[in-house]
C-alpha cells in the first residue's frame, strides 16, 4: 500500500476544520480516506477476526480524535493514524496471545546467507507461516515495509523506533523467513513447528 502523501495538504485542511468546529463532515472524509489502511494493518494481528479488528480500529479513531490537536504534521496523517492503530492492536493482541504463545524466541532469529530462489514453488501458506513465527517487532516491520510498502522513516514514526532499527529488523525478519523456508524444504511440511 502506498502512503497517501499526495493528499497530505487536504488532510491538513480537514484536520484544521475538524479541530475548529468538530464537524461531522470533515471527520467522515478523514475516516473514509484512512480507515481501510488502518484496518489492513490491524487485520494481521487478529487472524481475520473482523469483530476484533474493527473494534480496534474504532478504538484507534477514539484515541486519534482525542490527540488530533497534538498532530504536528511531522509525518503524514496516514502514518500517524496507522501508528495509533498499531499501538491499539498490540495491546489487544497481547491480551489475546496469552493462551496462544506463538512467538518464537529471539534466539531463533539468526543471520543466514541469502539464497534467493531456494524455494521457487513456495506456497503463500508457507510464507504466511514463516512470517507468523517471527517475533512481534520483526513481523511488524516486515509487514509494514514488504507487505504494505511503507518507508523506514514512516515505520520509525509508527513504531517509535529509529529508522536504522527498522532497517536492521527488516533484514533479520527476511533472513528468518528465508531460514525457515529453507529448513522446511529440507525436512518437510510442519517439521519445524
Amino acid at each position, binding site marked *: 500500500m502506498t502512503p497517501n502523501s499526495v493528499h497530505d495538504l487536504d488532510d491538513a*485542511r480537514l484536520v484544521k476544520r475538524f479541530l475548529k468546529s*468538530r464537524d461531522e463532515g470533515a471527520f467522515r472524509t478523514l475516516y473514509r480516506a484512512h480507515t481501510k489502511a488502518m484496518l489492513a494493518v490491524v487485520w494481521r494481528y487478529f487472524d481475520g477476526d473482523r469483530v476484533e479488528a474493527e473494534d480496534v480500529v474504532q478504538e484507534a479513531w477514539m484515541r486519534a480524535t482525542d490527540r488530533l490537536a497534538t498532530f504536528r504534521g511531522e509525518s503524514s496523517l496516514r502514518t500517524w493514524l496507522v501508528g495509533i492503530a498499531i499501538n491499539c492492536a498490540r495491546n489487544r493482541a497481547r491480551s489475546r496471545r496469552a493462551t496462544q504463545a506463538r512467538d518464537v524466541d529471539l534466539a531463533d532469529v539468526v543471520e543466514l546467507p541469502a539464497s534467493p530462489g531456494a524455494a521457487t514453488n513456495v506456497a503463500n501458506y508457507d510464507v504466511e507461516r514463516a512470517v507468523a513465527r517471527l517475533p512481534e517487532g520483526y513481523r511488524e516491520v516486515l509487514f509494514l515495509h514488504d507487505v504494505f510498502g511503507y518507508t523506514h522513516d514512516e515505520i520509525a514514526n509508527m513504531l517509535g523506533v529509529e529508522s536504522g532499527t527498522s532497517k536492521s529488523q527488516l533484514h533479520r525478519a527476511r533472513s528468518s523467513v528465508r531460514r525457515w523456508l529453507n529448513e522446511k524444504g529440507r525436512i518437510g511440511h510442519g517439521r519445524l513447528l
Partner: protein
Amino acid sequence: MDDSSNSILSDAEEKALRSLADAPDPSPELEGRVVAELKRRGAIRANGGWIMNISKSAAAAIIVGAAFLGGFAMGNRGETAPQPSDVTTATSDESNQYMLLMFTRVDPSQATSADASSDEPMNEEAYQAIFNEYRQWALDREQEGRLVSAEKLADDTRVMTGRGDQMQIATSAHSDRALGGYFLITAPSLEDAIELAKTHPHLKYGGEVEVRPIESTR
C-alpha cells in the same frame, strides 16, 4: 542496506508476501459506530454547525436540504399542497412529471483543493441570502401548482453490488457527484421542464441539476 530490493527472498516468496496485504474493506456499519461513539463523547457535532466555514458551492447541497426541510416535502408526508391561485400552467393531473435531481460534485481533488477563491468562508448574511433563493424557487413552483413533492436525501449511502455470496456493500458510490435531493415537478414537456430547471439556483452555486421524465408504467 537496500530498502526496496529484497535479495534474500525469491520473487515467488516476495509475491507471496505481498499477497498478505489482502484485507477486506471496513464494514459499512463501522463508520456509523465510530461516528455515533464520537457524538456520544461530544467529540464531533452533527453536520450543520460548519456551514459558515465552507465554500459557497459546497454549501449549495446543504441549502437544498434546508429548503426541503423548510416545508416543501409534501408528497411523501401526506401533507396537502396549497391550491394554486391564478395558475395558468398545467397541474400535476394534466401534465407529465419530471424529476429534478440535485447533484453536487464530490471529487476530492475539487472538494478540498487549495483553491482559495472557491473556499472563502461564508458569513451568516451570505448564507441566508442563498437559502432564501432556494426557498423562493420552491415557493414559486408551489404557487404555480407545479411542485408535486420534494425530499432531501441523507448522506449515509449504501451501495450494493453482486449477488449471493459475492454481494458487497460499500458506503460510497465511488462517484464524482453526490445526489442531495430531488424536486418532482409537472411540466407539459421535457423542454418545459428543462427551461424550469435552468432557473433553479442550485446551478448558480455550482451544483448540477439532472432532469428525468417519469415514465408511466400504467
